[in-house]
């Protein structure tokens, strides 16, 4: 079954294409936006801006450290740099530069990490960004955004551009089905969206896993369990109120992310829940493992990132709260 089918969600085009559209939109509307590329513009789709506004597009080549430093300089001149590459290469090569030149300096710069998660598939684990959210979590001033569908990608790119300060935004190679009506995603940085109401338990997800969570919720409803689904599109600042309310009102929480369990959405949510209103929790995400080259759908099944995995975790959490 196609992702989102069970929940009745319509398919869409790959998220990187949506990102390219959204980036072009903000670059068109705001002449202060400049785009920096680490020679992957044709993959991240940042190249849409190169075609439209060549004077505001800079390919710095395969040199991520310098890429980030140059972006910091442009931010220092009052421009809004979108510094773009694959999450894996950009964050891992230039973490020190993002830390000092962007995060510690609290600069108004935007980091786009594309090909997040494992769903880039066949290029394999060397290219996958399975640790991007954890790495960005290590930078206290960095806002962290993970859009879940085309409308939220557009809204997130706009919100990131408007926000004054450092922002990391995750993009993906994979297509994510429509969760929100096109052009109509309520998106406030730090405010989770409840995309399905329910009182029996809450599933908190981001990115691709929001659609999977809605599929799981549709399955659970058939079993008489009503799951609330939260699209936690912002990992920093966390929506503590929404998480505490979910814990208090449903009594059980499942988290789902296309990321290592270490340092990603689940561990962040657990910290809030444990500190406010502890309830039984289960976590869907990558165990301590590097995955392999394969078709994205096969990877999601093998590494337990499907709606069925979320539903199974939900049944466990729901049972635990009954005890």
């Amino acid at each position, binding site marked *: 079954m196609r992702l989102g089918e069970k929940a009745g969600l319509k398919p869409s085009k790959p998220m990187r294409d949506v990102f390219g559209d959204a980036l072009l939109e903000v670059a068109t509307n705001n002449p202060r936006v*400049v785009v920096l590329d680490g020679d992957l513009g044709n993959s991240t789709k940042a190249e849409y801006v190169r075609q439209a506004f060549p*004077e*505001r597009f*800079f390919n*710095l*080549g395969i*040199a991520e*450290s*310098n890429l*980030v*430093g*140059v*972006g*910091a*300089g*442009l*931010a*220092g*001149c*009052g*421009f809004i*740099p979108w510094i773009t590459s694959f999450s894996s290469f950009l964050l891992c090569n230039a973490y*020190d*530069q993002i*830390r*000092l*030149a962007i995060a*510690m*300096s*609290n*600069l108004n710069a935007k980091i786009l990490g594309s090909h997040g998660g494992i769903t880039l598939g066949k290029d394999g684990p060397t290219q996958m960004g399975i640790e991007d959210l954890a790495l960005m979590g290590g930078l206290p001033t960095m806002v962290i955004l993970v859009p879940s569908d085309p409308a939220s990608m557009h809204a997130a790119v706009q919100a990131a551009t408007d926000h004054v300060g450092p922002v990391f935004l995750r993009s993906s190679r994979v297509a994510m089905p429509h969760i929100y009506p096109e052009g109509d995603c309520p998106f406030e940085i730090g405010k989770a969206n409840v995309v399905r109401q329910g009182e029996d338990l809450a599933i908190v997800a981001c990115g691709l896993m929001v659609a999977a969570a809605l599929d799981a919720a549709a399955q659970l409803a058939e079993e008489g369990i009503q799951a609330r689904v939260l699209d936690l599109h912002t990992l920093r600042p966390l929506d503590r109120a929404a998480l505490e309310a979910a814990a208090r009102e449903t009594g059980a929480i499942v988290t789902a992310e296309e990321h290592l369990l270490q340092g990603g959405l689940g561990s962040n949510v657990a910290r809030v829940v444990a500190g406010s209103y502890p309830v039984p929790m289960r976590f869907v995400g990558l165990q301590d493992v590097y995955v392999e080259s394969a078709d994205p759908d096969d990877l999601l099944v093998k590494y337990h990132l499907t709606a069925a995995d979320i539903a199974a975790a939900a049944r466990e959490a729901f049972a635990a709260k009954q005890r």
Partner: protein
Amino acid sequence: MTQTVSQELDLLALKEKARQIRLDILEMTTLAGSGHPSSSFSTVEILTALFFGGILRYEPGDPWWVDRDRFIMSKGHAAPALYAVLAHAGYFDRQELWRLRQIDSPVQGHPIQGMMPGVEATTGSLGQGLSVGLGHILGGRLNRLDYRVYVLLGDGECEAGQIWEAAMAAAHFKAGRLTAILDYNKFQETGPISREMALEPLAEKWRSFGWYVSEVDGHDLGALIESLQELKSIQDRPAILIAHTVKGKGVSFVEADFTFHGRALNPEQAAKAREEILCA
């Protein structure tokens, strides 16, 4: 004739300014009980030439004036020298210097952008400043401003890959308004550079990356000013001024002992150093 005399007088005043800056670095680091006095001492004449020798265009009352020349201290451990020269240039009250490394003070051990006026970049992890400088060049072009960008590099810092990424990119973008100055004091933290890492042939490396290279005695104020003025005429590519310096310059027993790299002078040593600097 008159001009020669006034230039000599100016040079004397500049030498006195350099002496004051060196003394302030000594006081700051001794008061803080830590810091990098020797790495700061080697930069003093370079900074004096830039800020007081008519090279940099700046406005201390409007530190973020869009058309200011940028000065980026890439070797962030020379923060005491940066703070001292900024204070003397009028960016902030000189009394701030005595708060170096103290709690609740903006005068951080290494420069943090946004905490002190005149600090253009956060540095301290080496290798980063040249890239930021290139960003300011590209931003200046987009804004149609004609300011110049100066980046002070350490020599050990040139072991970092990012320096050469930036060097390649600056030549690619024909960053004619970008000038790097290398504080070539021949020592890194653990010892003589020639012993720890083969950096030479350095001038050839920069030249082969497409840069205009010039060399100077980094403690000769007149020669520094002359070289920096000359480099302003290089328009088609970035330029580097390799300034041959002495680590710990101005204090004999610091010059003779590279282990002062990350160590302040104690009050007794500072008293002796003060005397030497005052008598020089």
